[in-house]
C-alpha cells in the first residue's frame, strides 16, 4: 500500500502539473508553487452501489491541503483499490489499480487508458518499477502479473506461490528486483523481479498490510486478518509478534519519512502508533463514526501531519501527530489509499 513512499517525493514541482491538468486553469509556475500540496485518494464506495447503479462517486480524488473539497480525476464509476506513481525527470505516470483493470494517466488525471485486459481481472495493487516505465507489477485475485512492455502484454508470475490470491505487493527500497507479496497463506519474496517467489514463513496467514521501514530497510512489518502485527528485524529471517494489537485485523501500516513514527490500523482498532520501530504499539485515536481504517498517510515533509482514510467516514486529518483530528471530507467513501499528489 505504501510503495509510493519508497521513493522521494518532489512535491512542489508536480503541484503545478496537477493544477493545470485538473482544473484546466492557467496557473503559472510561481503561483503553483505557492499553492499547498494536493492529496490524492483512491476511494472505494461500498460494493452494493457499484455496478449498474446511478452513483458515480468512486474513483480517485485530489484536493489542496487544508481544503475539504475534493475533485474527482477519474472519469466515472471506477471501483478503486490503490494508486501508483512513476516519476523520472519530468515524466509522471499515475496508476490506478481498479476493478476494471489498471488505469494509467500521463497527463495528471486528464485522460486515462486501461492497460490491462480481461485476463488480469481486478487489479488490487500496482507497483511501477522506479527506473523502467515499461515495467509494472500488479497484484490480482489470480496472482501477480508483470509487464515489461508498458502494458501491451502481461505475464503471470506465480512460480513458488501456493495460493493465487495476492492482496498486496511492495518493492524493496534498496533493490527494485526484490518485492514482497501478501498471498493468502504467507508473505512471499522474490529477488529476481517475480521469476521465482519464496515463502517468508511469517507464521500467520492472510497478510493484508506490508511495510518496509523507511530508514531501516531490514525491518519489515506485516498486518494480518485477526492476527495482529508481526515484525521482522532481519529482513524476514525471523518474525516476532508485535506488542499490542494482538488478534486484531490490520489493514494498513504507514510511517513518517524519518521512521520515528509508525502507524497501524484496521478493523475496529482505531489508530495505533509505534515509536520504537515496530515492536511496541500504543493506541492513539478512535472514532465511533466508523468501524475500520483502510489507509494512513504521514506527510513526508511534516511528521506531525497525519491522515487516515476510513471505511464510511471519509478522510480525517491531524496536525499534531494524532492528538486532535478533523474531518477532511469524502464522507461516505471507503478510502483505500492516500498519497501526496506530487
Amino acid at each position, binding site marked *: 500500500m505504501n510503495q509510493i513512499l519508497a521513493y522521494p517525493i518532489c512535491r512542489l514541482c508536480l503541484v503545478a502539473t496537477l493544477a493545470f491538468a485538473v482544473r484546466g486553469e492557467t496557473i503559472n509556475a510561481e503561483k503553483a508553487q505557492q499553492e499547498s500540496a494536493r492529496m490524492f485518494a483512491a476511494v*472505494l464506495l*461500498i*460494493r*452494493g*452501489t*457499484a*455496478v*449498474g*447503479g*446511478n452513483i*458515480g462517486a468512486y474513483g480517485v480524488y485530489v484536493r489542496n491541503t487544508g481544503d475539504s473539497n475534493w475533485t474527482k480525476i477519474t*472519469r*466515472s*464509476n*471506477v*471501483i478503486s*483499490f490503490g494508486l501508483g506513481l512513476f516519476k523520472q525527470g519530468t515524466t509522471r505516470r499515475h496508476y490506478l489499480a481498479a*476493478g*476494471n*483493470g489498471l488505469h494509467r494517466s500521463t497527463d495528471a488525471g486528464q*485522460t*486515462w*487508458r*486501461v492497460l490491462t*485486459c*480481461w485476463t488480469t481481472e*481486478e487489479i*488490487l495493487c500496482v507497483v511501477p518499477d522506479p527506473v523502467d516505465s515499461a515495467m509494472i507489477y500488479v497484484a490480482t*485475485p*489470480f496472482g501477480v502479473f508483470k509487464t515489461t512492455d508498458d502494458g501491451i502484454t502481461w505475464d503471470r508470475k506465480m512460480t513458488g506461490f501456493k*495460493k*493465487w*490470491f495476492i*492482496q498486496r505487493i511492495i518493492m524493496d527500497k534498496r533493490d527494485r528486483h526484490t518485492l514482497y507479496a501478501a498471498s*493468502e497463506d504467507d508473505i512471499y519474496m522474490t529477488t529476481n523481479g517475480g521469476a521465482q517467489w519464496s515463502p517468508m514463513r511469517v507464521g500467520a496467514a492472510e497478510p*493484508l498490510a506490508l511495510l518496509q521501514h523507511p530508514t531501516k530497510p531490514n525491518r519489515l512489518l506485516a498486518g494480518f*486478518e485477526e492476527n495482529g502485527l508481526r515484525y521482522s528485524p532481519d529482513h524476514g529471517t525471523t518474525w516476532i509478534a508485535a506488542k499490542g494489537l494482538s488478534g486484531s*485485523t490490520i*489493514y494498513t501500516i504507514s510511517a513518517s519519512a524519518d521512521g520515528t513514527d509508525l502507524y497501524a490500523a484496521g*478493523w475496529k482498532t482505531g489508530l495505533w502508533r509505534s515509536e520504537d520501530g515496530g515492536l511496541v504499539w500504543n493506541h492513539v485515536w478512535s472514532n465511533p463514526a466508523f*468501524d*475500520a481504517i*483502510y489507509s494512513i498517510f504521514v506527510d513526508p515533509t511534516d511528521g506531525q501531519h497525519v491522515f487516515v482514510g476510513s*471505511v464510511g467516514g471519509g478522510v480525517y486529518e491531524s496536525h499534531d501527530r494524532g492528538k486532535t483530528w478533523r474531518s477532511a471530507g469524502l464522507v461516505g467513501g*471507503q478510502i483505500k489509499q492516500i498519497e501526496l499528489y506530487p
Partner: protein
Amino acid sequence: MKMSSIILINFLFLWNVSLSQQMSREGYLKAYADRAAYVTAAFDTASNASFNTIATRYAHNSDIGLADSMLLEVLKDPKGDMFWMFPCMNAYLQGKEKMSPAAKSAVRTAWKTYAPYRGDTENHWAMYYASLFIAAEQWPGLPGSEWYNGRSSDENRMEAKEYIIHWIKVTTTIGQGEFDSPDYFPEYMNAMLLLAEFAQDPQMKQRGLMMLDYILVDFAAEHLEGQYLGGFSRIYEPAVYKPLNSVASAFAYLYFGTGQPSQTGWLTYAALSSYRLPQIIYNIATDRSRPYVERERKRVRNVIRFGEEKNPPVYKYTYITKDYGIGSLQGGILQPIQQHTWGVRYTYGYPYTTIFGLHPYYSSLELGMFFPEELKPLIADVVASKGTYNNPDKWTGSSPYERTFQYLNTLVVLYDIAPGTSTGHIDGFFPANLEQRLVDSSGWIICKAGDTYVGWYPLQDYEWIAGKSPDQKEENDFWRLRSHKLQNGYVIEVRSKSEIGSFETFAGRLRSHVPKGVLSPGAVSVRYTTLDNEKMFFAFPDIRKLNGKTIDLSKTKLFDSPFLHAEVGSEMLSLTYKNLRRVLDFKNLRIVE
C-alpha cells in the same frame, strides 16, 4: 380497444392452445410473431424516453424524429455501466440508417466520454464485451483518444472477441458459472442476441447464434409451463417462491409460448431480432409426455481465495414430469448470496408453485471466496445491494453445511451445522395455497398441490411460522417450517396423480416408508427406502449410496438426458428429439442437423 389489448386477447388464445399441444413449425412461427408483436406493442407507442422505446420506434419506423429526440435525451446523462452499453448499441443499430446526424453523433460521443464499468460477474462481462465488440466494429480505426477507456477500436474489438471466445469455451467445456439463473438469463440472452443480430465478423455472428441455441436449450430441458426447474446459481426473492416472476419466464412466454404474457423491456431485443428458436428446442421445452432425468455439470463461480480449485464442479440433477419438477445441486457453497440449492416446482396454484428448503447461512468468509475486498466490511457492503443476505429469514443462499442426494423424484437433504454459525436453523417454504398440508402421525408432512403430491419427512423437531411476502397485505401466503437443531435433514418424496394414483394412496405409501437418521455432530446420515423401493444411504457431506452402490458425481457429464448430451471438455452439445437432431459444434463453429 387499444391495439395492445387486441393483441393480448389474441395471445391469450394462442397461449392456451400452445399449452395443450405442440405446434407445427408454421404454427409456431405465426404464434411467435404474434407474441413478439405483443411484446413490442407496448414500446411502439410509449412516450417515455428509454432505449427500448427508441429501438422499437426505429425498428418499426414509428416517428423517427421522436426516436431521435428521445435518444438525445437519454444520452445526456448516461448511467448503468454494461446495463447501459447493450441497450444503447441495440437502439443505435436498430436506427443507424434512419437517425439524424445529431443523434448518430451523440451516440459516438457517449462511447467516448461515458466510461461504463466492466463489473465483476459473468453476466456483466458477457454484456460488456458483447456490446464493446459490436461498438468497436461500428467505429473501426479510431485511436484510444476516441474511446472511454483509452484503447483503440482494434484493441477493444480484439479484447472483446478474445473474452467472448474464452467464455464460450469455458461454458462448453466445464459449464457456466452463473448457470441456470432465472433472473440473470436475459443478460446472457441479450448479449448473444446483439452478437447474432449485429456482428459483422461472421464467426462472431455464428458464435452469437449458437450460444442463443445453447442458452435456450439449457433452459428448455429444465422448463415446465414457463418455470425454470432445478437448482439455480442465482435467483432473487420473490421469484424464488413466485417462480413466474423471474424474467426467464418472460422469455419462456416469447419463445415457448408458456407461462404468462409479458411486455418486459428485457424481451424487446429478442422480439426485434431475426433469431428464431429452432423447432427442436421448442419441442424439448414443451414435450412433457414422459418423465425424464436431466443431469448437468456446471462450475462454481471463480473462487479467488479459501479454495483449492478455481472452478470446482457443480452437479445438477432434475427430475421432470408434466406436472412437476424436482431438482437439486449437490450442496455447499457454489455461488455467493443467491444460490437455490433445491426445489420442487409444479403447475398448480400460481403464483406460489414451489416447495423448497435451505439453511439461511451468511458469512464474510463465503463472500471472501468470491469478492476481493477486506472480509470484515463485506457483509455490510453486500447487504447494501442484496438486502436479504444477512437476514436469517431469507429464502435464497448457499451453505457449507448443506448437502443433497437425489434419485429420481426422491431427495435427501442433510445438515451438519457448526456451533456458532451465523444462522442456527433450517427453513422450509410451504405455500399457504396448498390444497392439503397434513402433519401425519408417521412424521411425514404430506402436501397436495393439484395433481402433484409432496411428502416432507423432517428428521428433527420443528415449528410452523406463518409468513408473508413483502407485497402480501392480509393473510399469510406461506408457512415456514423452522427447525433449530444443528444436525438436521429431511427426505422429500414427490409424485403426481398419474404416477401414483390418489393423494390417499400417496399418503398411505409414505406412512410405511420412514427414514432412519443418525444425527450427531460430525456423524449425520440417513437410510431411506423410497416409495419405489430404492435404498438410499446418505452420510454428510458426500457419501451417497444407491442400493449399496456408491454414487460418483464426478462422472457427471456436461449434459445428460434423453434430449441433451455433452461430454466434459467437448465444446459440443447434441440435441435430440424423436427423429430430430441438432449438434452445436463450437470447436468447428458449425451447426449440424
